[in-house]
């Protein structure tokens, strides 16, 4: 009996030692803890952008030099406001509206892609055109009506954050059954979901159209990129297509998915772009964070046009047209009026 107990104790000791060994091997972890240190967060931001941002070479930005310039501004005696301001200014060196820092109290965004240019959109004037329009989408960002005695359809799509269902698009195109031309107004469309912009673009072609390329980072080096992968616009196959003339109105506030929409539909034979160069924003953005919990968004994957050219700084219109102050005085939108003239002439 005594020998049996002794034997059991030896066996239990062996099991315990094996368990301990296994736990030690698998349990070694180094935790990254919450850290408010301005220096630590400054370095973390610089490194995050250094390893993930996709336009260093295209924009000819020396990120090491940026570090040298801004690093002396931050020490551990700096406060959180100094840190936020310094990081925002550092990010602005990249001239990219897709780089955003969100702290607990503020949001940074580079505005240079539109702030230094005329808006070419007067909301008071647009309201007169939208009077009596139908609305769709959860946030009423999509409005539509007919102009020119029902001969021309008009859609204002203010944000591609606003989803639109295929059934809603069918309803819109039903209401344009007697129209001979269509105006898609994406001025001030600051972007959103590429799925939404593609869904609308797919209505304007009956063929699969090669419309661009996408690349992604394959490593942390500034030039570590994959081969360009071709992007295609697939036609909507089970409902209304619009193959008659389309004019897309653009301005500098047309950004990101809005910019991508203009780049894609601009190559279609029945589509003409009119207005100002778009704002750009062709880097597909991803999100990460800093040790202090601030959110950081950055451009990660460049989307090129069909000629493998960057559209990060915008897409030029086929027909440049600016808002005429004299028209504004008369509550007329120069871009819409020009589009109506062109579409009426084409009928």
């Amino acid at each position, binding site marked *: 009996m005594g020998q049996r107990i002794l034997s059991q104790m030896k*066996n239990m000791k062996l099991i315990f030692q*094996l368990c301990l060994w296994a736990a030690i091997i698998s349990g070694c972890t180094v935790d990254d803890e919450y850290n408010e240190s301005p220096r630590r967060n400054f370095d973390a931001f610089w490194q995050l952008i250094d390893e993930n941002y996709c336009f260093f070479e295209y924009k000819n930005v020396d990120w090491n030099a940026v570090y040298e310039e801004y690093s002396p501004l931050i020490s551990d005696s700096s406060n959180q406001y100094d840190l936020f301001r310094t990081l925002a200014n550092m990010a602005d060196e990249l001239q990219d509206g897709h780089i955003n820092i969100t702290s607990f109290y503020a949001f940074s965004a580079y505005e240079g892609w539109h702030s230094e240019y005329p808006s070419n959109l007067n909301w008071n004037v647009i309201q007169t055109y939208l009077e009596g329009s139908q609305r769709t989408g959860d946030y009423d960002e999509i409005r539509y009506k007919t102009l020119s005695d029902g001969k021309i359809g008009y859609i204002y799509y203010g944000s591609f954050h606003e989803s639109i269902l295929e059934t809603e698009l069918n309803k819109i195109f039903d209401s344009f059954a007697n129209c001979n031309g269509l105006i898609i107004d994406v001025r001030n469309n600051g972007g959103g979901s590429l799925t939404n912009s593609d869904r609308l673009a797919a209505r304007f072609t009956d063929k699969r159209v090669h419309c661009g390329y*996408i690349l992604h980072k394959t490593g*942390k080096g500034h030039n570590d990129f994959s081969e360009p*992968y071709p992007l295609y616009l697939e036609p909507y196959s089970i409902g209304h297509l619009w193959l008659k003339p389309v004019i897309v109105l653009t301005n500098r506030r047309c950004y990101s998915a809005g910019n991508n929409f203009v780049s894609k539909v601009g190559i279609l034979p029945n589509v003409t772009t009119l207005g100002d160069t778009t704002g750009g924003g062709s880097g597909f953005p*991803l999100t990460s*964070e800093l040790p202090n919990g601030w959110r950081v968004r950055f451009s990660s994957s460049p989307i090129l046009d069909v000629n493998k050219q960057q559209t990060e700084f915008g897409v030029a219109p086929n027909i440049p047209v600016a808002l005429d102050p004299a028209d504004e005085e008369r509550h007329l939108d120069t871009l819409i009026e020009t589009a109506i003239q062109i579409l009426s002439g084409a009928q």
Partner: protein
Amino acid sequence: MGILILFACSQSGLTQIDTLALRAMDEATSFGFGSYQLKDTYLSPFIYQGWGGRILNERVTWLQSKLSRQRIIGVDLATTKNPAENVNDFGIFVDYSHAYHYNVFNGNDFNILFGASASIMGGFIYNTRNGNNPLSAKADVSLSLSLMLMYTLWINEAPVTLRYQGMLPVAGLFFAPPYGASYYEMFNEGNLSDVLAFNSFHNKLGLTNYVTIDIPIYTQTLRLGYLYSYYTTDVHSIQTRIFSNTLLIGWVKEFYLK
């Protein structure tokens, strides 16, 4: 605990049996709760920590006197926070393993079993704040080595079975998106090149330590357990870690074959 075991065994009326010979099939269902760590540098460079639950169903069938088959299905749910505690990562993982063990040492009360398993795991980590990269999907098929130590402790002539099992993945395939590839590019646009990777010790380390105590109580068997699961990968410069310590409680159904 000792009092509970003594009381339980004295009431159970079980006779001394050779558990390995007669327990032809055991099915155990356990529920667990414990601490979790999630890290996926596709979502964030930081470790998110929190809590989670696990459901585990295990079936062990003795195919021959020394050969057993073990099937385990597990479901993990975890909710974790970043170091600043202002963002959540939710993890959901489902795994299934199919193992065969050979009894390499058969003592009176102590047995050592060694074997191999094929396992499949799928799931995702969801970050509540990220925009275009809110989710990191996990899919992994692997072959593992498995070591099981079983010890039967006799209390009031009733068997209390202690078990340790360690499982070490050796090689397999897993879903490993390229460093900066977006899910939009992979799944909307269909660029799935380089998303599958061979894995072994050079890019993946996993270890599962599973300790159970089966305590007979009347005609039932209570299972108490502890599961230490460590899964870490480093591929395409994306590091992942899924780490948990879980305490389990469940019951065992025993099917005897003549």
